[in-house]
């Protein structure tokens, strides 16, 4: 009977016609199953113990490929466990913009989200259910860095990572081989290389910031290499003040790099920059690995290589910026053990292989996931992540979204324009915005 009741309660909570119909369908199936279940329990006593047989799954992965990939995962899960998954796909911009109302209304049991400040924020507000019991099962599948990124502000586990993609420098192997460039491992080597490239008539470091967010990658890496991962986390959570020497140092260091970055960055999108790199007009490009999707020509795509951001002052190259996407359990979903089973399934190499078999653009987050189909570049990217001691999520995921969108974008754009930044004002704005949360 429990399964039927669950189906009914989910009908009540989501009055949307489509879910209603879907759930009625599920209900009908469950009804048909009732006599069978009753027959089972007759002999074996409390074995079933209230385990429900369906869950709802809210997905913001509305693009064709990820949508199909999640469908493959839910199908495989249903096949394995007999638990039905009702997926509600919402266009991803809508999903992100409406997350507040979604979580407070009648959310699905589990939903797609990302690690970082906004996960922590909703966890702190009590809108998510901690899943330490799930992590007891899947913990061994993840590196310490992944575990750190999945932990809430109260030290409990909340997040199941599915995949991620690292940020770093990308370049064309053939160009570097022809000119005899070598991968820099320190900041001094990087600037020396950039200078050499400039002498060769190249734009040393490709750069685009018309959309405002790409420059955050440079800021994050400089900050983590100068002040360490923890400082990055504390600064983005506004536990550290912006008005201090450590922050001004980041911008001062950046000033040494600015002359080598594409001077037209403010009028360019990252796609424009990707084209320049592909055309060998520029030497290297600091961006996320989604850059490689731009190269549809296979000879160019195979010619792309990667190296991590060079070390500067602290922690070598331990920290990697690699935004993680995965699943969370809502407050409501905490009562549904089937939802926890689903999260546990996604946290296994098996579940992630199913996802990656459809969507191969990203790197599976679990250890032991199938890497046999990886290109050499993908293998390198995966190594960069698995060797990382700490993983940051990119400024706009680690910080308050308003801080990233309304404060950092204009501040970084004006820094790119004239090399000046007012850290006092950044602090004043941060103070006001974080207080409003």
């Amino acid at each position, binding site marked *: 009977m429990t399964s039927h009741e669950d189906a009914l309660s989910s009908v009540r909570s989501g009055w949307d016609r489509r879910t209603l119909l879907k759930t009625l369908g599920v209900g009908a199936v469950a009804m048909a199953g009732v006599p069978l279940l009753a027959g089972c329990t007759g002999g074996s006593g409390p074995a079933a113990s209230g385990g429900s047989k369906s869950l709802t799954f809210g997905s913001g992965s509305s693009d064709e490929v990820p949508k199909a990939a999640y469908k493959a995962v839910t199908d495989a899960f249903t096949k394995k466990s007999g638990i039905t998954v009702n997926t509600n796909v919402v266009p991803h911009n809508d999903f992100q913009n409406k997350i507040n109302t979604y979580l407070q209304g009648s959310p699905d049991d589990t939903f797609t989200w990302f690690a970082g400040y906004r996960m922590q924020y909703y966890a702190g507000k009590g809108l998510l259910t901690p899943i330490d019991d799930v992590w007891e099962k899947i913990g061994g599948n993840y590196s310490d860095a992944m575990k750190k990124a999945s932990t809430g502000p109260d030290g409990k586990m909340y997040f199941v990572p599915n995949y991620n993609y690292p940020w770093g420098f990308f370049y064309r192997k053939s160009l570097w081989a022809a000119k005899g460039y070598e991968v820099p491992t320190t900041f001094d080597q990087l600037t020396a290389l950039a200078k050499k490239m400039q002498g060769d008539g190249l734009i040393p470091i490709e750069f685009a910031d018309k959309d405002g967010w790409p420059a955050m990658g440079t800021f994050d890496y400089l900050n983590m290499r100068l002040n360490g991962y923890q400082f990055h986390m504390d600064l983005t959570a506004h536990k550290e003040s912006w008005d201090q020497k450590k922050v001004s140092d980041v911008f001062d260091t950046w000033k040494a790099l600015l002359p080598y970055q594409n001077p037209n960055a403010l009028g360019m999108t990252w796609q424009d920059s990707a084209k320049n790199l592909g055309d060998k007009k520029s030497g290297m490009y600091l961006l996320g690995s989604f850059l490689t999707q731009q190269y549809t020509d296979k000879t160019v795509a195979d010619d792309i290589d990667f190296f991590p951001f060079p070390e500067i002052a602290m922690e070598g190259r331990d920290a990697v910026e690699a935004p993680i996407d995965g699943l969370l359990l809502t407050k409501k979903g905490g009562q549904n053990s089937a939802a926890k089973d689903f999260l546990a399934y996604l946290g296994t190499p098996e579940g992630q292989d199913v996802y990656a078999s459809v969507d191969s653009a990203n790197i599976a987050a679990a250890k032991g996931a199938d890497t046999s189909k990886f290109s050499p570049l993908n293998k390198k990217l995966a190594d960069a992540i698995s060797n990382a001691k700490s993983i940051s999520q990119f400024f706009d995921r680690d910080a308050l979204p*308003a801080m990233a969108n309304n404060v950092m974008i204009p501040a970084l754009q004006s820094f790119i324009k004239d090399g000046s930044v007012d850290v006092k004002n950044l602090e004043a704005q941060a103070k006001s915005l974080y207080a409003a949360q």
Partner: protein
Amino acid sequence: MSTSTNTSPARAQRPAAAPAGRVRRLSRRDKWVLSFMVGLPTLIQLILVWIPTLLSAALSLTRWNGLSLDDIKPTGVDNYEFIAQNYPPFWPAVQHNVLWLVFLALIATPLGLLLAILLDQNVRGTKIYQSIFFTPVMLSLALIGVIWQLFYNRDSGLLNFLLGTAGTPQAVDWFGDSHVNIWAALIAATWRHAGYVMILYLAGLKGVDPTLREAAQIDGANATQTFFRVIFPAMRPVNVIIIVITVIESLRAFDIVYVINRGTNGLELISALVIQNLVGEGQVIGVGSALAVILLVISLVPITFYLSRAFGKDKEA
């Protein structure tokens, strides 16, 4: 039914008894229909316009994370102080809105008037020209973005190609250089606004009594004098509308800068800041509401001024 039989004799008698006042008794049904027709729009107006306006005015005095209603904390005028003192894009946005107004009023609107006068001269193919100039008004936001991107793009745009600088380091970055992008955006805005003004003035010119023109010519006025002394003043109702439209357009200017770079880096406008703060991920409800209230107050000043002038004069005349 009884009411209609009662009123019909009254109606028949009244013109004789009191010819000046054409007062008619309204039947119950008339009253019902009238109150419905007045009441419904009022209700819609109230729900869709006034209540949200008052709510955002109230929210502008609070801090709220948008989660539960208990989290709303009154803060007095903190949000306004923040905007005026600590929010760097605000003052540039005000300046840009003023520049926008001046540019539309001095260049775009007169250009539209000029087009209207030219096309009013019974030029051959005038309908085609009209359609061409009016097209930008009807285009969607996304299309406008694409069109101007093709025109202004630094490396592959038409403009730099014509200037012969495309692909060279001297090429002007029309969208990325914060000294020139506001002008690029203003040209794009003019392209739309002039077409709009042109259509309104064309209608106005058609409505001017031709005998006025003839009379002016008989009195010996030349074409310029006829236009500025006779025709233009005769179009006063259209002029008022154009003024109001120009002011409103310059205050709510938004779409063009939004498609260029979402209103950052030299293209800040108050309306773009409102959107940035109220919609989407960077939501700061208190600050966004305060910006919206500021925009509302600014818009109210010119609109009430011109409308009261327009209607006031109509009453005198």
